[in-house]
């Protein structure tokens, strides 16, 4: 079951494959050339800082989906279990800890694996598994550690004082990096990185908005394009790639070309995809159904102000996690409500994800809003974004088929 790949239809995927290869190769090149490599959690504003300072960031959490897609996740899970980590812990945690502690020593890793870190960040921020995974790594790799502090604030409650505290932490990080690497921080380079990120976010929103057209030019099967939003924020690589994607999808819209020939049902997906089985997104096609919007992809629906680069990356760091988790449940429900209207959603699929409690909590409330306020039928299935053993294809198909029949019946009646 694991390693099932989605049928992708965007030409941009060819360029994406190269971007992925280049990203990992760049990490190894930096290591070989003795340039600093830092491992950091994803979805925060530090990536812009690292690129601005010439430090190569590596994201174990982005590595995990790749391991799941290729199938090395199982071996990493085994390593984590051998070290005493419970099977109830998040799959990202188990994969990344298993890989960092033992898997990293294996030969013939996909993309040559990850280059070992020269620095690490021990987080007080983000979800517990991410925070704890980095603590395990900090304990394991004997490298300098920066202890970060970012309070968990509901998105709608973020005020200037939170941003000011975030800025103070970033300034502390800059001093740490300058001291450890001898590299100098240049605010103008950071400003440029923020300009790139802001443009990437704007393009991202425009790309996502094309999916509101009927038929939708692409589906969730193409969600891998978000690789650049995770790893290449702050660079022209993301901007150039996304411009090409936008052009391609705009052309499809202009031609009235949908991802499938006869789109009948438009779906919303809540929670992280099953990285080991992206083919699920093609399963809907037998019902002429397409997933046209997701919660996860809205994580980059933000704008930064290049005139205030430090404040911008502090804001990005504060907002990224609450935006898609249960820290801001009401905000998330607002987002879904808007998506249902904007993307003309017929039905929703909620992945009850054993590997992600912050995103899975609140799904019953979401389901109730969908039914009672939006009259959108939905189905929830049990799964896990990293571990195929916690997912039943039969349960998934049964539930999806029932949902599709319900939606078709509803459409027929109306």
């Amino acid at each position, binding site marked *: 079951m694991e390693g099932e790949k989605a049928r992708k239809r965007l030409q941009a995927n060819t360029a994406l494959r190269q971007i992925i290869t280049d990203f990992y190769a760049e990490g190894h090149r930096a290591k070989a050339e003795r340039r600093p490599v830092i491992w950091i959690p994803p979805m925060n504003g530090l990536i812009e800082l690292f690129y601005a300072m010439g430090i190569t960031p590596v994201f174990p959490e982005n590595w995990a989906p790749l391991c799941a897609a290729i199938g090395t996740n199982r071996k990493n899970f085994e390593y984590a279990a051998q070290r005493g980590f419970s099977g109830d812990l998040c799959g990202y945690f188990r994969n990344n800890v298993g890989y960092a502690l033992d898997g990293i020593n294996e030969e013939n890793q996909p993309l040559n694996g990850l280059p070992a870190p020269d620095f690490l960040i021990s987080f007080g921020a983000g979800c517990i598994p991410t925070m*704890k995974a980095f603590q395990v790594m900090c304990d394991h790799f004997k490298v300098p550690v920066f202890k970060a502090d970012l309070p968990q604030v509901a998105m709608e409650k973020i005020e200037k004082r939170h941003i000011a505290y975030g800025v103070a932490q970033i300034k502390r990080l800059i001093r740490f990096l300058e001291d450890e690497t001898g590299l100098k921080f240049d605010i103008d380079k950071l400003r440029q990185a923020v300009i790139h990120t802001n443009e990437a976010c704007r393009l991202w929103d425009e790309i996502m908005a094309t999916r509101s057209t009927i038929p939708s030019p692409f589906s969730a099967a193409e969600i891998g394009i978000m690789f650049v939003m995770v790893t290449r924020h702050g660079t022209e690589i993301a901007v150039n790639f996304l411009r090409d994607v936008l052009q391609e999808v705009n052309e499809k819209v202009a031609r009235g070309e949908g991802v499938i020939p006869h789109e009948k049902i438009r779906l919303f997906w809540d929670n992280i995809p099953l990285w080991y089985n992206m083919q699920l997104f093609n399963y809907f096609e037998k019902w002429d159904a397409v997933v046209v919007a997701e919660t996860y992809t809205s994580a980059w629906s933000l704008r930064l102000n290049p005139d205030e680069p430090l404040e911008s990356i502090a804001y990005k760091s504060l907002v990224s996690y609450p935006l898609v988790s249960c820290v801001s449940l009401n905000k998330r429900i607002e987002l879904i409500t808007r998506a249902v209207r904007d993307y003309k959603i017929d039905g929703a699929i909620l992945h009850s994800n054993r590997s992600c409690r912050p995103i899975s909590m609140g799904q019953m409330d979401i389901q109730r809003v969908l039914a009672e306020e939006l009259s959108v039928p939905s189905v929830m299935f049990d799964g896990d974004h990293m571990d195929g053993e916690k997912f039943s294809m039969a349960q998934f198909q049964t539930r999806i088929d029932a949902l599709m029949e319900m939606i078709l019946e509803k459409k027929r009646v109306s």
Partner: protein
Amino acid sequence: MNRELKDLVHRHREIAREEKKENGRLVFGTLCSYVPVEILHAFDILPVRLWGDGKNHERADTLLPTYICPPARNIMAMGLAGQYDFLDGVIHSYTCDATCGLFNIWCRNLKPAFSFLLSPPYMNTDEAVAYCITEFKALIAALEDYTGKQYSAERLRKSIKLYDAARERIGAIYQANRNGATVRYLDLYQMNLALQVLPIERVVPFYDAYLSNLRMSPGKGAKHRIMISGSVVSDPDILARIEELGGDIVVDDTCLGYRLVQQRVPPHEDPLSALARYYLDRPPCSSRADFPARKEYIRETISAFDVNAVIFMHQKFCEPHLADHPFLKNVLAEKGIPQVQFELDGEGLTGQIQTRLEGFFEMLEVK
């Protein structure tokens, strides 16, 4: 221990209802030990820690996934059953993902008149303290708005003094236990819980009475000196079984116990600064600590209480503690301290837990 206190703890929701009805006090539910209850008290609000024992959680299945820890599900179930229908407000100070989710789902479904998510820093620097004060001030502004009362530093000083006095006494009982007095951990558990769920004014006399009745316990030296570790540990049956098997629980590393009473609020002319210092100075819980901080607390406490075995009682699906466990196991192995771990799945003292405990104590005997 005094049966009256145990009874009051058992009836704490009833008592909160009475306080509300007879004295017109507002009652707020608190989630996690980082809620500055002193501030609530200074506004004449009665803080009641939402406390779940992990049992009877099925009712929560309509709102929470089954892979959330049993105490969170139990709290939600009690809320849905109307057991907390007297609450005027709910406050969570961010610790773990599950509790934050519980807080948001509670607010959405049970619609308390007042709710607040406090976002404390993770570090304990001057910068962090200054930021923490701004969080407290935001809470105060919200409370002023809701209650129509003005914040008074003087009132806060008095509230801090009350809580400090209670914590000091429980701290003294831990020390007496450490030094061989006739303390049962089950009593300490009730006293710790009383501090969290009863009006503070009512609990201190019980602690004083307990302290004054303490005697040295001649048989204690023969028992194994145990530390228990976990998040919410709320199964008296298991604690009792540990005692029956020859364990003397001298200290803990839980959401309820020694970490919370170990320190006093430092003297400072500004009570908010003092309070921020107190909450950040406390040994952090697993959700707020990095590994060095966890190691420091475990090592120091083991040494201070002369602990010779540790029992990890982890709630099922409790990610912070499950993630810490292999690390802490190694910390203990370095010191030659034996440990055992089991998970609590809302079923209390199960046969499996009994067997593991019995095996562990047999091993300790041989050792």
